[in-house]
């Protein structure tokens, strides 16, 4: 904590920097493609409202991840009531990535699909920890802070998540190869 607090960041700056992160986080948490923008909207409404409380010393992205996590939990709860099934749509197929060669693109897309499929095998509590730590590089104590869980719980979730992720990747890979 600093003695003198910095001014709250500007919403536009937070949005510009944070949108891709929020989008990716929602995707990795398993939000269906067609719902990502809706939920990102909700996330940034929360952000807008809470910006005044935001401590600029706090890293932005993990803070956003925590909000995204809670917003998606609320949305999933509603979705459950409607008995909708979350899952990833076919959008991965459509995603374009102009720079690399087609082969490279294909490989990468396949890798991304594999990651998402493996993430789908994790329950949400572990998934968010895994995503924040392994994909965003957030240290566990900070994850604990942002998702409101004891840090030891975060460590143990991460451990289990890693093992399950690895197992899921092996299995999915095997399925693909034998297919």
């Amino acid at each position: 904590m600093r003695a003198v607090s910095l001014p709250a960041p500007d919403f536009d700056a937070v949005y510009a920097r944070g949108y891709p992160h929020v989008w990716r986080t929602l995707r990795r948490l398993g939000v269906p493609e067609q719902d990502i923008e809706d939920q990102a909207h909700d996330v940034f409404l929360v952000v807008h409202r809470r910006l005044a409380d935001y401590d600029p010393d706090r890293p932005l992205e993990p803070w956003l991840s925590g909000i995204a996590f809670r917003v998606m939990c609320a949305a999933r709860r509603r979705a459950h009531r409607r008995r909708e099934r979350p899952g990833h749509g076919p959008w991965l197929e459509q995603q374009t990535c102009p720079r690399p060669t087609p082969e490279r693109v294909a490989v990468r897309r396949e890798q991304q699909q594999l990651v998402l499929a493996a993430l789908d095998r994790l329950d949400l509590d572990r998934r968010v920890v895994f995503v924040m730590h392994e994909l965003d590089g957030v240290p566990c104590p900070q994850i604990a802070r942002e998702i409101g869980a004891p840090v030891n719980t975060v460590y143990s979730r991460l451990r289990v998540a890693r093992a399950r992720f690895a197992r899921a990747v092996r299995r999915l890979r095997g399925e693909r190869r034998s297919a």
Partner: protein
Amino acid sequence: MSRDDAPWSERDEFAALLAAEQAVEPPPGSDHRVRERVMASVALGVPTPPEGPPLEGAQLEGAASPVEGGGAGGGISSGGVASTGSAAGAAGVSTSVAVGGGGLALVVGGATLGALALGAWLTLAPASPDPTSAPTPAPALPAPRAPALPAPATATRSTASSPSAPRPPDPVRPAPAPTARRAAPAARPEARPAPRPAARPDPRPASPTTPAVDDALRGELELLAEARDALSADAPDRALSAVAAHARRHPRGRFDQEREVLAIRALVAAGRPDDARARAARFHRRFPGSLHRAAVDALIPPAP
């Protein structure tokens, strides 16, 4: 992945997998689309959407984990769900009635712009972390990465879309009631039948921006903001004209429900309870599962 979970032969592969996922970018135009909607919601004073604890089912064997109990002042305890019904009703009421004080108080819910429950929105205060007690984190992957994020962009965009809407730091903050934090499924039987824009006559633009749609949206927002401001200024007649203008110009607008709520409020404020009641009845017929149902009911004075 860490050493203990993956043999050496796999570590590079896992790292490559995760790196591929890290490179993902949102589709073109996505940020702009969402930003427009966020600013519209802010301008309209849409209540902050709910944040929720993890699903019960999400923590299967982790039952022992005291997780979401602590830290964040919000106390993400799963008890929240129980209090939904009444909390929703109450929240709707407080939201709609608490106009005054320069606050944003238009009752707008998620039917159109967002999955925004009119909700008992309990502030999740910034967590009070206790990093000191935390052991040093295990190193992550073979190759340490910086968070894969773009460099901070400078804030160049203006927030011109919400000039008319005062934005107090805390538009809709019901008194924090630790137990009633969840918004409101009970009050919204139809809760978001479909993703909002799709449910509306005007199709979502496929391209990042479709000026015509944006203009229409802005036009709607301006009229509704005008109505809201008039109500705040205790000028219900002016509010009614704005509402009428909205109905005329945007007969199939995205905010027809919100317009009706404003209209009912204006009628009440103008001392026309019978008209308000009639309009509320029409509202219920036309939007049987509306999110605003409870709010509308709360506005209507009891029949003499």
